């Protein structure tokens, strides 16, 4: 009798799992591409001359009125034979060999949206390039860095052992970069990240800076300052508490925010940290509550961010405290996991607008069947195009159809990028690796609505 009972229960369990797996909610690709026609998105109404610059976010969102002043690409002339004289070597491609560009992004786990979105951006860039650079097809594959230091280490080791790789698009998270960058830099690659924002990574005096590293994402010196400006001047709040999760990204962003907030005249009531894997935030929120802050700033990731959003509402003294995160919490999964408590939660994130971006979003929707799930697809698109331009500038073809890409020359070419017209603005790279031209905005979540709405700076609100 018990055998039969156990059989029945087991069968029920399997049936339950199969049914659940077939349920429509299991996949996010339900939105048909026809739902969001490209024409539905109005072109930006912000001419660059009509607005006054704010104290912090000085650069403007690019529009079509900016004349392209890009340095034209002059490809190298074909030579009969080529001897590599580059100090860190060359990549030699036979006449039919593909150009190998790899990614190191967080494409699974809690922060899968971050890396998947960047990868989608690169895939569109490859489509736009016709799948080819200088007549060689583009081979695009890579490793999952899981948004963690150990994931970045493992993925970096795998990529560094492949000498055919010319450049790496990545990483997604700053902690991944800190672990992977020593390996990738030593292997001679150009690394260009679409979403690393920790200031250390492009600080020439920091031990976390490695040559060959670039990024199209903003430096958090801008993001932290913009967040402090928003909280102090726009919201008019004077007391804030900060929480980080020990990651390079969160701890540096919290530090920049705190320094700027104090400089403006505000008070940091508590600066504390949480374990990114914990679910019970009651003790940390209790210690935050002792300072009675007006706002809690926690630029961390999922799922810990969602638990703070949930539990802050039920902590005595924090029922009406405003909550704010940063671009790490700009993801549909924040809305899905935080449910109704997400109402009013704010995040800072770059603003990307303009007709070129609208055309890009239309391509994205047509190719992937859904609205962009994050913000860094545009940065990834630009990252790929910067690398492609640099390759086209330095690669030396030979008359038999082979192609030589000198590695140090490629790094220099990326660093020399000037007035590159990208989706995210007019980009100019420096030797330290920063290419971004950031405009930071603040977005507010509403329950059941994605993406969140832009609330600051008011001049960009459509």
């Amino acid at each position: 009798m018990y055998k039969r009972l156990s059989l029945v229960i087991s069968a029920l369990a399997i049936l339950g799992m199969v049914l659940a797996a077939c349920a429509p909610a299991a996949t996010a690709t339900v939105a048909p591409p026809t739902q969001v026609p490209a024409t539905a998105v109005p072109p930006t109404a912000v001419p660059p001359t009509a607005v006054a610059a704010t104290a912090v976010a000085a650069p403007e969102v690019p529009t079509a009125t900016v004349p392209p002043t890009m340095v034209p690409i002059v490809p190298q002339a074909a030579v009969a034979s080529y001897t590599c004289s580059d100090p860190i070597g060359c990549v030699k491609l036979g006449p039919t060999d593909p150009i190998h560009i790899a990614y190191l992004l967080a494409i699974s786990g809690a922060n899968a949206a971050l890396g998947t979105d960047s990868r989608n951006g690169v895939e569109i860039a490859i489509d736009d390039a016709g799948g080819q650079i200088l007549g060689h097809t583009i081979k695009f594959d890579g490793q999952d860095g899981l948004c963690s230091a150990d994931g970045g280490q493992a993925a970096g080791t795998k990529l560094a052992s492949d000498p055919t790789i010319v450049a790496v698009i990545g990483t997604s998270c700053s902690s991944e970069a800190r672990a992977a960058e020593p390996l990738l830099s030593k292997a001679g690659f150009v690394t260009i990240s679409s979403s690393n924002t920790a200031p250390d990574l492009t600080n020439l005096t920091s031990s976390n800076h490695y040559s060959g590293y670039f990024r199209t994402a903003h430096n958090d010196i801008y993001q932290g300052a913009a967040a402090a400006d928003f909280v102090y001047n726009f919201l008019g709040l004077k007391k804030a508490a900060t929480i980080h999760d020990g990651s390079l990204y969160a701890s540096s962003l919290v530090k920049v925010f705190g320094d700027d907030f104090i400089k403006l005249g505000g008070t940091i009531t508590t600066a504390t940290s949480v374990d990114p894997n914990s679910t019970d935030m009651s003790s940390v929120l209790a210690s935050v509550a002792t300072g009675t802050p007006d706002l809690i700033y926690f630029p961390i990731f999922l799922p810990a961010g969602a638990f703070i959003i949930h539990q802050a509402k039920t902590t005595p003294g924090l029922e009406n405290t405003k909550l704010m995160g940063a671009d790490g919490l700009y993801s549909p999964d924040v809305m899905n996991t935080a449910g109704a408590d997400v109402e009013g939660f704010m995040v800072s994130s770059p603003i990307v607008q303009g007709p070129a971006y609208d055309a890009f979003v239309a391509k994205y929707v047509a190719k992937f069947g859904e609205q962009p799930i994050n913000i860094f697809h545009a940065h990834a698109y630009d990252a790929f195009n910067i690398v492609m331009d640099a390759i086209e500038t330095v690669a030396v073809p030979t008359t038999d159809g082979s192609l030589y890409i000198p590695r140090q020359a490629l790094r220099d070419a990326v660093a020399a990028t000037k007035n590159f017209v990208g989706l995210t603005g007019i980009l100019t790279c420096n030797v330290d690796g920063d290419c971004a031209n950031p405009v930071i905005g603040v977005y507010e979540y509403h329950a059941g609505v994605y993406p969140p709405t832009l609330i600051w700076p008011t001049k960009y609100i459509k």
Partner: protein
Amino acid sequence: MLRTWRQRITLTDIFIWVIGLVIAGAVIWGTISTLRLHLYTPSIWLDLTIKGLALGGVYALIAMGYTMVYGILKMINFAHSEVFMSGPFTAVYVAMGLAKSGMLNKQPIISMAIIAVVSMGVSAGVALLLERICYRPLRNAPRLVPLITAIGASFFLQYTFRGLFGSGSFGYPAIKALQQYWTVAGTHIYKTQVVVIAGAVMMMLVLFGIVQWTKIGKAMRAVSEDKEAAELMGINVDRIIVFTFGLGGASAGAAGVLYTFLFPVVNFYMGFIPSIKAFTAAVLGGIGNVPGAFLGAIILGLLESVGPNLFLTGLGIPSPSQLKDAIAFIVLVLILIFRPTGILGERISKDKA
């Protein structure tokens, strides 16, 4: 045969006692200096205590699976964390469906019952499959073999769920009826917390009743005492083991539902940390002992919730909440030093060691 105290006490004993006293002193000193700071209002302490009790209740239900299986098979079922994860992960789709149809807020009690039944059913089913596929063929193998199998099965289940449902997190829809609260001494006591504590206590009573006062519970205790003798007395040992796994699985499924009331996010790796805590609670209370596991879980839940702020704030340690696991495990080590069998643990006989 009486020896003097000099002969009975070794250097190791003194060393351990000194460690224990130092830790106890630090805890007392930290507590006093925290209370003298008057940083936290009484309502915060009350709130933390209630949250700790709710968390402890969830740990207790998970710990049941560990402790009952250990009682009967003398093995640690490390795949129990995935048994715990599978129930609420599957039931999230039921909850989403109920929320979409509006049933969840119109008939909260019936809806919660449906979610709980689905979750318990799936968890029990997974536990039974585990027993049948992974453990029964290895019943007479050396002790380490089923342990390694359990770890393998745990990974297999985790990645099966990742493959079936994806690697993202899913949020449980909020139940409006549970978001109401009563105000007691300036603290909001949420219905969620009351439901979790009451649900956990009720489930514990049911489990305790089954083990103590039913025929099959008597048989379970007999198998736990001596498998061969029980078999000779006409007890079908296989049936008892299957029943135990099913019961442990169902209680893990119930724990899963209560856990999602507290932390309404599910993902495929959600089982690991609460289950490690529950296993700790089972050892703390004395593994193999049902009331012990309950007691251990409540103590652990309270320590985690109240401990960091109470013991460490006064010592001036920054971000005390980062150290809550350290506190819980230091207490575990202390208790095992002074009572190796756990708080309510039975004497470990040669057969069980």
